[in-house]
């Protein structure tokens, strides 16, 4: 596509003006997206459906024994001392299940291959620690299959985990032990023409139950019969490519069943696959093969003009060994391929390689079984998107032979994440480190079995071995395994000790001692936590730390990032509950109550899925607009993260996203979309019979383009007329040079795109990256315009890729916002953060033409109708004036409170606290109709420009009906992490608007932040209280609870105390606490004067100075022998409040203990403390309405409750403590507040 260049200083285009050199050629349009469509796939391209097993020579006959077998499970019985011993003494042996004439007609039908942990219909079976089962079937042999000295070989492609085989009642050979390798028995002496009986006894003991193991159990891979013409046969060969020498080196396993040694002169024939065209034939030196099974070196074979295997050209060969009569002894398919780690790079056939990977759940394969060729189709589709490497996650089970053969043929590299140690045949993960070594024989067998697959390029010994966790240390064992594998693997493939193990913390800890060729980190910054810049910083920091530790560069990849793809699943239950709620008025109390309900729901199905969306998408969009939700997922949780990694150069070569296959391609059926849940039409049609392409597939294709154009982190809400600089990257991940140019344009709304300066990157060598700043002046739209910065990449003059980023340009509005008198501003940020802060609310308001009067004193509040509290202005003066401000609002004042950092209760509104944590780039507009969002959309509340791009840094707490906008969570599991960021509440006759958005900080450069600022001001300046402001049940307003020492009366419990804090023996009625022994005491309680949590001082008795007694323990159901009350504790003072330090064990609902106060005038008053409100159970303590957890030790807690004395003017003479006899109450200390302190709730001063 050619373009005209127009050198013009000033070009006017529509409503926009561009002051830079521009081109006036027709604007480019992005390459078509085409998401949400039925997959169009030419199935004639697919190979045979079903299992894709290793090929055998053409002169071998193959009979599949797959199908329906007879099956009987036997109970495992009492676990033997050693459940792994598995002696042959079960009922099957005794009753002759292996015999030819055994009548198995009463047995179940069972499919082979099939994992016995899975139900026959494919659903989840019962997860058990192990199984013992017998399989039987018959098979026919023709005389011709036995003639001519043919060998009959039973070929089991995978049985887990111990198999004993009988043919016609006779044992076929020694027991096979292993899960992941094929094994064979030469049954020629046992077989006969006609009907033959095959019996297989399979046993497995894992020591734990886990759904992850469900796909590897019993006869889970195919079984076939091979009729081999030669008396000697080879199961498998290990072919090593010597790329520079153009040779292969071969080691083969031979089976000599003849009983005596044989010497053979073999011929090696290398042919292209699948054409069969011979590339080379070479006689080999004679080999002597002893009886039995042996691996032998066969030497080197030249390969003239070899065609290397690579994802771009997955060329395959076969190596056939033939005996002197030309009969095939064995066949091995292989690829001529070399893969190494050297320096900071990975090399494929001598050329640099960068993974564009996918972490693959192997369950996919189990589900599909390549039925109708679906697995092959899926893999080919993934390849077409630019994926060149797959890491089958070890935790999802072992992959099948079919998978490797398909990857060989299609051309997808496999990062082999070994799952064996997770499933080693000893007790699960508890002995995981030792299992690494003890499972080496199993691993070795697997490596030999799969050695020659060219797709298999890299190793990992398992997932996330974190050194030292739980006292488990892997270094020594990983290093041993490294050595063993290096000796075995003559291909020299790189080894990573464990995918995800090499996080920065471990590298810096000095605990890593093992060798590793590749570093692999798993981290999720920028997606669920932190910002994109945090992710970029981390990659840099990691690279420095790794280099420092290892002293030399190593290739580094990141095999888990962004977010697990399960994040996007749609659930019927979720929608049925949520969808009706989102039809309500979002400003209504009813909607908010239901919204909060969902957000905090314990049910993972509902709450978890809602909370998970908050990181990139509002719940409203998730529920009501599936297409938009999926689009946002693609953009925010896939595209942006992948771009960061693609741009990381050698600091991180690439990695594997966590998205799932069904986010790319949805299988036929009705599941996974909104339409199926509540009938609302969605983008995915009901009742599909075809596979369905999802929008993420398009995103993957775009961002996994080997040549990528992308933008670094930049201001996506620029101010109109401002000069912006955006770093543009071209990443050339091909192994060839190219001349690159980038055409950029700004497409806003429906206007003609504004062409931006063309960037000439020049010639770039392969595997390099370059960045050029794109500088332009932002147009000045007449109205707020949303659109994209579009980037189009040209290589050698041809368009090869594009990319885009959302941009919002908020129209200029420089209309001053006159406060109109009676508006005050309290802004103390500059003083509190002197030298640390330059952006203050005063300056931000000035920039939008708003100049309220600075507030000199809170005593002057009554002069004003609106108080603006500047960002970061909660200081001592304001705190001390909290009550005053509160009263002023109740009488009709209004507050607009900008973002604050002082954590704790809001001084003038105790319903909220400011809390830290989980700052994020995204904020969810929960009430989109609120005037604060006028002119703005949800998309605008993401990625506010700034050093970290956060839209807020501190939030409000708790989540209640005052919410207007909500913060995302760090984890969808955390119910308490969803917090308001904007709140709007009515208080008496007044109103308070809180905005924790980083408006003040960002409004100088971010147009959306500035628009928010204007909206906040306009809203606050309105007369009266808005209908959007909801009134919350007023919380008792007190100053932060604090009793000065001089106001405290320490009530003496020394005489009443009957127990100490420590107890040694349970139930001996001696010792201390509640007599539940050392694990049930509370010896951690500090003694002496203690101001726990800084609130109220207590004097906790030191048992050493009080005859071993320090607390009062009363009777409960579990401890009936304690006294039911203590009476007559002297007080002797007039008190405003009484604070009790207490707790309970085995707490029952309802009243637990009552405190009875006897007054000097003869009256009594009682404080009945209940479990639910005042004195909860000590275990896993949590605050209640009148119980603050003031001390914790592990899971034990001590509470403080307050009793507001109804007769503060009358002396309390004594107090009694009386148990209700259900819970076991414990009283540790009691303090009274002697002097009156002003309280809004108003108890009169004496």
């Amino acid at each position, binding site marked *: 596509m050619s373009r005209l260049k127009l050198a013009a200083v000033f070009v006017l285009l529509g409503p926009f003006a561009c002051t830079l050199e521009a081109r006036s050629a027709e604007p480019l349009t992005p390459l078509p997206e085409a998401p949400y469509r039925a997959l169009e796939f030419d199935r004639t391209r697919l190979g045979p459906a079903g299992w894709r097993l290793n090929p055998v020579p053409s002169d071998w006959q193959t009979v599949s024994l797959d199908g329906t077998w007879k099956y009987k499970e036997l109970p495992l019985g009492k676990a033997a001392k050693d459940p792994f011993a598995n002696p042959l003494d079960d009922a099957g042996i005794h009753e002759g299940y292996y015999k030819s004439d055994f009548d198995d007609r009463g047995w179940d039908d069972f499919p082979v291959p099939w994992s016995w942990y899975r139900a026959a219909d494919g659903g989840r079976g019962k997860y058990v620690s192990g199984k013992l089962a017998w399989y039987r079937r018959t098979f026919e042999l023709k005389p011709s299959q036995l003639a001519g000295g043919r060998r009959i070989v039973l070929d089991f492609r995978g049985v887990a985990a111990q198999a004993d085989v009988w043919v016609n009642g006779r044992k076929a050979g020694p027991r096979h032990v292993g899960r992941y390798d094929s094994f064979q028995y030469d049954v020629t002496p046992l077989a006969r023409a006609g009907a033959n009986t095959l019996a297989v006894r399979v046993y497995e003991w894992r020591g734990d139950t886990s759904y992850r193991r469900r796909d590897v159990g019993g006869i889970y891979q195919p079984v076939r019969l091979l009729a081999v013409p030669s008396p000697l046969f080879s199961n498998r060969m290990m072919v090593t490519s010597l790329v520079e020498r153009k040779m292969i080196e071969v080691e083969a396993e031979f089976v000599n069943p003849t009983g005596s040694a044989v010497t053979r002169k073999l011929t090696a024939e290398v042919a292209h696959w699948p054409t069969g065209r011979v590339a080379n034939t070479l006689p080999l030196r004679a080999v002597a093969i002893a009886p039995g099974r042996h691996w032998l070196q066969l030497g080197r074979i030249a390969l003239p003009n070899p065609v290397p295997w690579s994802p771009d050209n997955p060329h395959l060969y076969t190596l056939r060994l033939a005996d002197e009569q030309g009969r095939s002894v064995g066949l091995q398919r292989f690829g001529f391929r070399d893969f190494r780690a050297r320096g900071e790079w990975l090399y494929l056939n001598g050329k640099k390689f960068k993974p564009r990977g996918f972490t693959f759940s192997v369950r996919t394969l189990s589900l599909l079984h390549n039925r109708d060729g679906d697995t092959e189709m899926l893999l080919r589709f993934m390849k077409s998107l630019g994926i060149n490497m797959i890491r089958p996650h070890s935790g999802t089970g072992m992959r099948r032979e079919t998978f490797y053969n398909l990857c060989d043929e299609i051309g997808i590299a496999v990062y082999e994440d070994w799952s064996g140690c997770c499933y080693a045949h000893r007790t699960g993960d508890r002995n995981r480190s030792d299992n690494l070594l003890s499972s080496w024989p199993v691993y070795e067998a697997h490596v030999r079995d799969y050695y020659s697959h060219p797709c298999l390029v890299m190793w990992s010994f398992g997932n996330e071995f*974190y*050194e*030292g*966790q*739980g*006292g*488990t*240390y892997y270094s020594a064992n990983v290093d041993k395994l490294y050595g063993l594998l290096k000796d075995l693997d003559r291909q020299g493939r790189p080894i990573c000790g464990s995918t995800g193990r090499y*996080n920065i*913390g*471990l590298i*810096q*800890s*000095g*605990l890593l001692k093992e060798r590793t060729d590749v570093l692999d980190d798993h981290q999720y910054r920028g997606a669920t936590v932190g910002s994109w810049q*945090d992710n970029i*910083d981390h990659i840099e*920091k990691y690279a420095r730390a790794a280099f420092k530790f290892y002293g030399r560069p190593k290739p580094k990849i990141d095999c888990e990032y962004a977010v697990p793809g399960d994040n996007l699943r749609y659930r019927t239950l979720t929608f049925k509950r949520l969808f009706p709620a989102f039809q309500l008025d979002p400003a209504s109390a009813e909607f908010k109550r239901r919204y909060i309900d969902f957000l905090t729901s314990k049910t993972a199905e509902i709450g978890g899925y809602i909370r998970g969306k908050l990181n990139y998408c509002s719940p409203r969009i998730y529920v009501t607009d599936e297409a938009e939700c999926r689009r946002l997922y693609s953009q925010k949780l896939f595209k942006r993260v992948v771009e960061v990694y693609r741009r990381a150069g050698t600091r991180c070569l690439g990695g594997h996203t966590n998205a799932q296959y069904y986010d790319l391609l949805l299988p036929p059926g009705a599941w996974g979309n909104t339409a199926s849940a509540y009938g609302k039409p969605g983008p995915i049609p009901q009742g599909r019979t075809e596979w369905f392409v999802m929008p993420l597939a398009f995103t993957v294709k775009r961002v996994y383009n080997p040549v990528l154009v992308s933008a670094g982190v930049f201001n996506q809400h620029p101010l109109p007329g401002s000069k912006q600089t955006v770093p543009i990257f071209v990443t050339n991940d091909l192994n060839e040079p190219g001349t690159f140019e980038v055409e950029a344009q700004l497409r806003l709304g429906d206007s003609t795109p504004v062409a931006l300066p063309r960037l000439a990157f020049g010639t770039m060598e392969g595997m390099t990256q370059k960045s050029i700043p794109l500088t332009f002046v932002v147009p000045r739209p007449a109205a707020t315009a949303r659109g994209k910065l579009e980037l189009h990449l040209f290589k050698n003059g041809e368009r090869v890729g594009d990319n885009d980023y959302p941009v919002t340009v908020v129209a200029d509005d420089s209309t001053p916002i006159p406060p109109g008198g009676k508006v005050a501003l309290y802004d103390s940020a500059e003083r*509190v*953060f*002197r*030298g*640390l*802060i330059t952006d203050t609310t005063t300056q931000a308001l000035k920039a939008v033409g708003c100049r309220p009067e600075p507030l000199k004193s809170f005593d002057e509040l009554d002069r004003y109708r609106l108080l603006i509290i500047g960002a*970061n202005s*909660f*200081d*001592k003066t304001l*705190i001390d004036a909290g009550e005053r401000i509160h009263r002023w609002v109740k009488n009709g004042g209004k507050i607009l409170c900008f973002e604050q*950092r*002082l*954590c*704790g*209760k809001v001084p003038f509104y105790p319903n909220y*606290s*400011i*809390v*830290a944590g989980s700052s994020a780039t995204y904020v969810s507009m929960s009430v989109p109709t609120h005037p604060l969002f006028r002119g703005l959309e949800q998309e605008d509340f993401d990625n506010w420009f700034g*050093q*970290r791009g956060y839209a807020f*840094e501190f939030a409000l*707490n708790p989540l209640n009906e005052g919410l207007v906008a909500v913060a995302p969570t760090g984890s969808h599991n955390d119910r308490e992490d969803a917090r308001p960021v904007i709140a709007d509440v009515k208080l008496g006759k007044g109103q308070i608007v809180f905005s924790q958005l980083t408006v003040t900080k960002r409004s100088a450069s971010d147009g959306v932040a500035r628009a928010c600022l204007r909206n906040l001001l306009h809203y606050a300046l309105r007369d009266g209280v808005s209908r959007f402001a909801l009134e919350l049940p007023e919380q008792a307003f007190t*100053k*932060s609870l*604090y009793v000065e020492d001089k106001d405290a009366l320490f009530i003496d419990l020394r005489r009443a105390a009957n127990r100490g804090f420590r107890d040694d023996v349970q139930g001996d009625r001696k010792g201390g606490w509640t007599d539940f022994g*050392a694990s049930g005491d509370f010896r951690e309680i*500090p003694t002496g004067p*203690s*101001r*726990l*949590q*800084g*609130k109220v001082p207590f004097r906790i008795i030191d048992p050493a100075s009080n005859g071993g007694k320090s607390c009062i323990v009363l009777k409960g159901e579990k401890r009936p022998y304690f006294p039911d009350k203590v009476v007559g504790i002297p007080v002797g003072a007039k008190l405003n409040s009484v604070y009790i330090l207490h707790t309970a064990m085995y707490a029952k609902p309802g009243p637990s203990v009552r405190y009875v106060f006897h007054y000097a005038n003869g009256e009594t008053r009682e404080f009945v403390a209940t479990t639910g409100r005042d004195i909860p159970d000590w275990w896993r303590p949590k605050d209640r309405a009148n119980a603050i*957890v003031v*001390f*914790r030790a592990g899971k034990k807690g001590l509470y403080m409750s307050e009793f507001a004395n109804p007769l503060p003017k009358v002396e309390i003479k004594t107090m009694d403590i009386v148990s209700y006899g259900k819970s076991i109450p414990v009283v540790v200390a009691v303090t009274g507040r002697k002097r009156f302190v002003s309280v809004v709730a108003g108890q009169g001063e004496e």
Partner: protein
Amino acid sequence: MKASGHSLVVSLLAVLVFASPCRAAAPSEWLAYPKGFEYTSEWLSCVVKPSGEITAVKARDVLLVQDLFLHGTYKPKDRHDARFFQQAAEQAGSLEVRKLEEGRYAVAKSGVLRNKRYAEAAKYSQHVTLSPDRMEFRYEVETLVPLSSNTKIFLTLLTLPMATYANRGYRLRKGEGGGSLNVFPEAYDKRSDIRAGGVTELRVVLDKGHFVLETGDNTVISLSDTRGWGGKGLRADVHAFIPWRQKPVTYPAGTKFAWSFRLVFDHEK
């Protein structure tokens, strides 16, 4: 200062030197200060106790740090007091001081940390450089027995007086980021629990300047408000970066830890 010579004046001086904590120093070789060392300057001052513990770090009359000492804590397999305090360490020689130049001194201390369970748990060395506007610290610890922990084991513990820092604005930096701003709350509220880890710079705005705590290589600060569990104020733990683990890691004997940091008073000119 070595007692020297034969004159009465010198002898009297020697008596004075050994009778009380010494001020200033004389020549540039290392001198033993068995009774401790008191440092004063135009801005910063402090008292270094014989154990190496440092108290009363002030910027003129403003108390910046109440206490600063080497501390250790590990996860015991059975119940016992699993802590180490520099004050209770076995001393390996006395405190040593060397004058670097006018107003600048180097202080060195080493010893063996111990508790009731371990007579010799870890050996340490401490190096401090005292200057009018900054103090620079370097610690090295080597375990003599295996010790387990979910996180850091050895650290320098600084207690910061609430009276100085209440309601003061501060900035925390972690790595090379811009930093987050906050205010130390006068009244403890559990929602304001400061707990911040991985900090590489703490900068607090005071009346006459900024108090700065900044870390050296592979060193971080963990900040907490001890009022959350009955303490009196702020605490800063400075230590080698060790990631938190869900399950404890056992460090064998011979494991070395090293960290360094600076305490600066950035006074306004």
